[in-house]
């Protein structure tokens, strides 16, 4: 599974490391990353590929939402046939 994860977050110490670490640890390879942060708010966009078919963008999105700094997560799958 491939796709894009977009996160809005509060720019606190370690926030980016926490999000990237989570996405990689939970079985995704990050191929493109864009990030911006100002005035205490940040946004992060990651293009990701799953390491194995058992990984779901939806599950990783919910795991990201558990992080204290994360305000909003959206995902879009780039797999053929995916909605």
């Amino acid at each position, binding site marked *: 599974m491939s796709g894009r994860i977009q996160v809005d977050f509060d720019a606190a110490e370690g926030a980016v490391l926490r999000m990237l*670490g989570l996405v990689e640890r939970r079985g995704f390879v990050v191929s493109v990353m864009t990030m911006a942060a100002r005035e205490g708010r940040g946004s992060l966009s990651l293009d990701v590929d799953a390491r194995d078919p058992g990984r779901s963008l939806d599950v990783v999105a*919910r795991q990201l939402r558990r992080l204290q700094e994360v305000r909003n997560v959206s995902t879009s799958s780039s797999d053929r046939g995916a909605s």
Partner: protein
Amino acid sequence: MATRAPRKALEAVPAPVTGARLVVEALEREGVRHLFGYPGGAIMPVYDALPGSKLQHILVRHEQGAALAADAYGRVTGQPGVCIATSGPGATNLVTGIANAFLDSVPLVAITGQVATPLIGTDAFQEVDIFGITLPIVKHSFVIRRTEDIPQVFADAFRIARSGRPGPVLIDLPKDMGVKAVVPAEIRPHVEAVEAPEAALIAEANALIAEARAPILYFGGGIAIARAERALRAFAARAGIPSVATLKGLGGIPTDDAAFLGMLGMHGMRAANIAIDNCDLLICIGARFDDRATGKADTFAPNARIIHLDGDAAEIGKLRRADVGIAGDIVQAMDLLTAIPRCAAWRDQCLRQKAMWAMDYDAPGNGVYAPALLKTLSEAAPDNTIFTCDVGQHQMWVAQHCRFSRPQAHLTSAGLGTMGYGIPAGIGALLADPSATVITVSGDGSIMMNIQELATIRRYRLPLKIVLLDNAQLGMVRQWQELFFDRNFSEIDLSDNPDFAEVARAFGIEAFTIDHRSEVAGAVARLLGTNGPILCHVRIDPRENVWPLVPPNSSNVEMMEKAR
């Protein structure tokens, strides 16, 4: 009049307070009574502020002991246990305990000293990036960058550690932040939003329950977290549905309840695994389809529809798609599951299986048979008993053969499987609940991982009862080598261990050894009748294995049994 006004204004300005004092005040404000720790350079300002506070510091003999004791304290009280250590090696020694709390969702606050702010990032003496090291094993973490923020950071840390799905929170405190005196910033109040379960999902779940003819309740550690025993028991009784538990769920429904089929999974009861295999509806409550519980995942509950209730939305659908997933307050959700399935025949079938596959306590020879000893001990122990254990065969025997009437009665390192958990956990449990009888069951491998904490038991006169099951081996590893590595026994021999009764006595703890089954009754009476700390060293047969067992990568119904 003119002279009074400026004096009033002066009085209104609060006096500056050191960061270390703010730490102590924050802990007092959170109602902390005990903290487990070990001092050193970078954390010395906080230790300087401890005397005269309301906090009792428990000086352990290794920081891992502090973190694991705080973990047990958190499990028993439901409030964050607190551990504290200095920078560098003190902080890294906490890591295993923090990971233990993370994997078992235990509320814990770990405070680490750090080198002074100007030295951070210079490879200073005893500098490690503990914030970075622990990122994957904390629920959240903070570095104190302004002394003024200490009250707010501590308030947030405790709230985060205990709320929702609990977990460990780390606060890294650079030395200069503890020394500086400031007027602290005010604490912002936090309002916790509790979401009621969605009515439509509850209706769907009730419809599935009403249709089911062979339902099973599969519950886990989430019951203890949500203190949901009442709701679970009421639901199970009302619906008449048989239940099984994970290692961490044991006690959610009393283990001696007639319709409780036992632990499921790798070392679970056959009746529990068979019931899961045959059920048409699996109601998973506060459990997470962990591989130790499910065996080969695609053969787990192969014909069942799934209702999954969990406090943590991220668990739903993580490993198994749920037909109905309800995230949020599991107590409220269970209370709303009022449908009654027509499952009397199924229930009878499950109970027949339970009777057919009941544990057998007959063992040849005169040696001590550990399962029988644990059963006898647990039956003789009072209801307020808490068992803590280490990791290995003895841990599985505790889970299989002891009785638990509440989840807090069984403190086990389930997720991380930390050898060395038992004794520190016993210390934490006794301080959290001094009225409890606390029994630690350990192995001769595990006990050596935190044996130094016998000194802590002695120092604080903690009446911990330790049962050391000594098979002179790393028994669980030996069992796997015997069964799955062609008996190629590699590095499991511990026959040169010291005489453990002598070791305990050297720490000032009463101890005795038994090796014959005729001594078991006397040993149990002595253990339970002794007021102070005591260690019973039990020599057992090194060839004994834990049965039944699901081999790795197998379905849960492919269980290996002890030859009868």
